[in-house]
């Protein structure tokens, strides 16, 4: 039995005529790191809300098909059962900060306090989580005095500290600096290796290719492509349908047309691109000299 099992899931928000998710079938194993990509309006956030129980328990609307996560069935359980197993980091961190806490430390402790975790344990877990995401130096700042990217790290940390079995992340690095983004991907990979299941909406395909186990490409509420990151991210159909692709892939695809890319397989990551283009170039001394 898969850890996440969605069968023929179709969902409509209240007052909106067209379904945002259409006949989604999806199985994810425990400890898998799955990235979700897709154009704006593809249903990515709604899929996150569904996995986190917000659809339908919070947003209401009409849902059909079955949603099972961590042995819970959506139609037979309540949101407060779900939150013990599933953590969701919102797309906009401003929407997630509680507004009830004065410091980052307290903000991150908020969830644990709410489920009645003993005081000493809260302290050590918050400390540990702050270290993990590299924001120990922000502990005493007000969550509202932080920059967008820092706030995003706080939002992520406040979910990680709960140690959910399923971590759902909706563009968790959208406001982060580039190297910070890579670090966060590394942290999330580590969580997945520790057995946490991760579903992450992201546009940054270079890092998806390096860190995720599987990619799901959504379009118009349906699964458009699904598979190993490399396969999905280099597919011609992706580029032709408004999905973001890596510059390495698009450049190699163009180079191939001009006979300047010699391999069958297109690259997604820097290493793959270096390896492939090296075949086109003469020995290192001659490169880039002719002007």
């Amino acid at each position, binding site marked *: 039995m898969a850890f996440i099992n969605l069968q023929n899931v179709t969902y409509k928000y209240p007052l909106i005529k067209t379904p945002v998710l259409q006949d989604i079938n999806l199985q994810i194993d425990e400890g898998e790191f799955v990235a979700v990509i897709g*154009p704006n309006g593809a249903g990515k956030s709604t899929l996150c809300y569904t996995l986190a129980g917000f659809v339908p328990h919070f947003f209401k609307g009409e849902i059909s098909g079955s949603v099972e996560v961590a042995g819970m069935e959506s139609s037979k359980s309540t949101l407060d059962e779900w939150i013990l197993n599933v953590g969701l980091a919102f797309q906009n961190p401003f929407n997630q900060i509680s507004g009830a806490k004065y410091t980052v430390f307290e903000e991150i402790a908020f969830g644990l306090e709410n489920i009645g975790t003993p005081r000493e344990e809260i302290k050590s877990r918050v400390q540990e989580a702050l270290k993990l995401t590299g924001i120990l130096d922000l502990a005493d700042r007000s969550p509202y005095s932080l920059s967008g990217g820092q706030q995003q790290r706080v939002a992520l940390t406040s979910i990680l500290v709960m140690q959910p079995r399923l971590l759902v992340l909706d563009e968790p690095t959208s406001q982060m600096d580039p190297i910070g983004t890579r670090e966060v991907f590394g942290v999330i990979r580590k969580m997945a290796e520790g057995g946490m299941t991760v579903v992450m909406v992201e546009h940054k395909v270079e890092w998806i290719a390096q860190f995720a186990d599987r990619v799901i490409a959504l379009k118009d509420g349906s699964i458009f492509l699904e598979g190993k990151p490399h396969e999905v991210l280099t597919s011609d159909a992706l580029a032709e349908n408004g999905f973001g692709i890596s510059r*390495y892939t698009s450049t190699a695809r163009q180079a191939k047309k001009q006979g300047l890319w010699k391999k069958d397989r297109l690259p997604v990551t820097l290493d793959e691109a270096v390896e492939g283009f090296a075949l086109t*170039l003469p020995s290192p001394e001659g490169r880039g000299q002719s002007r």
Partner: protein
Amino acid sequence: MKIEIKDLRFTYPTGLEALRGVSLSLETGEQVAIVGQNGAGKTTLVRHFNGLLKPTSGSVSIGDWDVTKYAVAKLASRVGYVFQNPDEQLFSRDVITEVTFGPHNLGYPREKVDELVERALSLTELNDKTETNPYDLSPTWRKMVALASVIAMDTPIVILDEPTTGQDAVNVARIAHVIAELRQEGKTVITITHDIDFCAENFERVIALAQGKVLLDGPAAEVLGQEEILAQTYVDPPQLTRLGKRLGFKEIVRNQEEFLNVIARSGR
């Protein structure tokens, strides 16, 4: 319209020293990207240009105006600022009202207001959403509404704070197109971004900030090639720049065209 910043320092009431002596001059019609680590002071810096923040010491002038002597409402005629988070900016019940508010408020004649609104809506491809409440749109479209409502003000200086955040490839291309249009019109565009590939492809000048100071400032190709220095402020060079470097290119390439030219010349 020139922006002149002299030894700008800013300390938040909490004691946080966000800017520690920034001096820059931005010429009329320049397209400038500001990059740097989260918390480097990027947003704090640009919020001085339209008077949302006032210098703790040092000075900022917009054309012949010293920002400390003019109200935000007045500065709005010279500097348009698109917030990082559209939810901090939008307040109207429908898109058309939102986009009309700025130019109307600046006192332009009615025909000019209509013309500016029309142009802003078509540039951002919001024409079919004019009657929609911005909060019924997805966050990504709300960002386009925020952008439209500022470009409709026709200010000589436009600031975009992380315009591509959360946008798909199609919308990023749309934003790049808007920036190109503004360049054509001779406007100064200052953009904060973490999307370094977008930065390399759309801006001539790049300023890297680190811990409240200018770390690098110069032509994009020069700045974005400085891998070790950029790492100090948590920025990677663009993908193709990194690739060129790894392949041993002698020159710094910024985009696909430049990259393929080098490959074509030296390929076997």
